[in-house]
């Protein structure tokens, strides 16, 4: 077989190589759609809203105008309690661009109450106001939590500051 070699570059040799830089400009203005528009209006009011499927009963949070499991349009809106259970949680030391955070944060997925089965449930990814140690010991898993709302809300997922522990499992 012919040997076709490729050429690894060290960071040093790359710095000295001939190269071309380009910064893509990609700007979008996205329609949130019917479901998210109502969801964000709800958050501004301090409410978590979902859409309920008439067939399987699942409440969709984040909401959709269709149930992906039954393929039916959803028109019934329900308010979901701003409480739930920690499905999973992690301690983050890095953020989007792999920059290290000065202070680690806890984020996780909150399983909201009111519908669902073992596999499916209404849920949100969000910050959890707790200590990293509670994650590392897995004590946080299954803990009951409640939303801490921002005082000034503008219709964004950040209208919830975080979820706070109400009781341990």
């Amino acid at each position, binding site marked *: 077989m012919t040997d076709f070699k490729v050429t690894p570059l060290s960071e040093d040799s790359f710095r000295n190589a001939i190269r071309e830089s380009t910064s893509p400009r990609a700007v979008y203005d996205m329609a949130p759609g019917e479901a998210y528009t109502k969801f964000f209006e709800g958050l501004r009011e301090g409410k978590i809203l979902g859409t309920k499927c008439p067939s399987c009963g699942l409440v969709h949070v984040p909401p959709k105008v269709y149930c*992906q*499991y039954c*393929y039916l349009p959803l028109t019934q809106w329900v308010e979901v309690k701003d409480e739930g259970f920690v499905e999973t949680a992690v301690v983050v030391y890095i953020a989007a661009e792999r920059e290290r955070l000065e202070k680690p944060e806890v984020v996780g997925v909150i399983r909201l109450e009111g519908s669902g089965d073992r596999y499916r449930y209404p849920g949100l990814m969000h910050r959890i106001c707790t200590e990293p140690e509670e994650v590392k010991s897995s004590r946080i898993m299954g803990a009951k939590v409640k939303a801490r709302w921002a005082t000034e809300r503008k219709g964004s997922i950040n209208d919830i500051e975080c979820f706070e522990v109400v009781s341990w499992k």
Partner: protein
Amino acid sequence: MDPIRVGIVSYGFSGFSPSVPSKSFREMVFEAASKAYAKVGLNPRTDVDAFVSCKEDFWEGISITDEFAPDQLGGALKPVFTVTGDGLLGIINAYMMIKTGAFDVIAVEAHGKPSEVMSYGDIERMAQDPIYLRPLAFPSYHTVKALEARAFMKYSNLTREDLGIYVSQSKRNGLLSNRAPHASSLTVDSYLSERELVGPLSHSDLAPRSDAALVFVLASEGRARELTDSPTWITGVGWATDYHTPSYRELGRDIATKNASEMAFRQAGLGDPGKQLAFVEADERYSFMALMEVSSMGLVKDLRQPLRSGDLSRDGSLPVNRRGGALSEGLPLEAHGLARLASACDLLDGTGAVVSNMGNTSAVLVVRP
């Protein structure tokens, strides 16, 4: 062994408007898919074996946009994948999947929401080679297409008046469509009075943009006949990718379309497609491209004669885009090929060729009643 035949049993659409601000792309696809399934009484959760979604990350503004494919199609926890390219490439993959014998019913989706892309020209430029071409910073992202237009017009001996004949005819055809907000009764004279924007191209040569979603359902022969009395049979498919670097390409002809059409016509058993085809649905993101496709597919010898004599018009012997194309409908990005296919299915009165040409890739379908 009998080869498996593949038919189109239904399609649905949403949008075809310069912008659809009230709906997210997912809600538009849900609307289109629901219509497509309802027409033939299909429940996608139980009756569809696989789903194909056609889209590009940078048009969507989502990296790994495949993530957002399944739910609105009814495909959650089912076989779903993305083709990065025009919707006709999705149809071709579905066609092959059914032909293996392992799949009976497949849904194919494409959508475009260019109204949400604020930096449209910059995205177009990002398709250029980042090392050789992009640094040249051409003033318009249409520049390369204008070079092609110039080369093609020279190759085919066409004038701007010829382009005007096509533009005027196609925009009038669009007046008969319920999906064509940009259709008009533009005359050749008013076309010729337009200022050239880039090279030989003026405002009316460039398709405006529109938001749209289309969903098609394909089935094997047995299932197709159960689902509808009037399936559209796909009798040939072809596709091809030409060189990315413009200077490697033969600019006056579209080799990708030539190769793709030869493949499709061979399968369909069309020895003299120029005579045997009843119509053509051509890609019209630029006016000249539709003509270039007719020429590159070898359907006419000298374009000038059929163009000037009206053979390519709605009532001619080889009509092109009988209800208008992207110049009238607007360009919904990857969904344009499916818009052409929808027109073909609407008017199907013989064997037709459907062509899309996005980037350097062409796809050709031969369909018949």
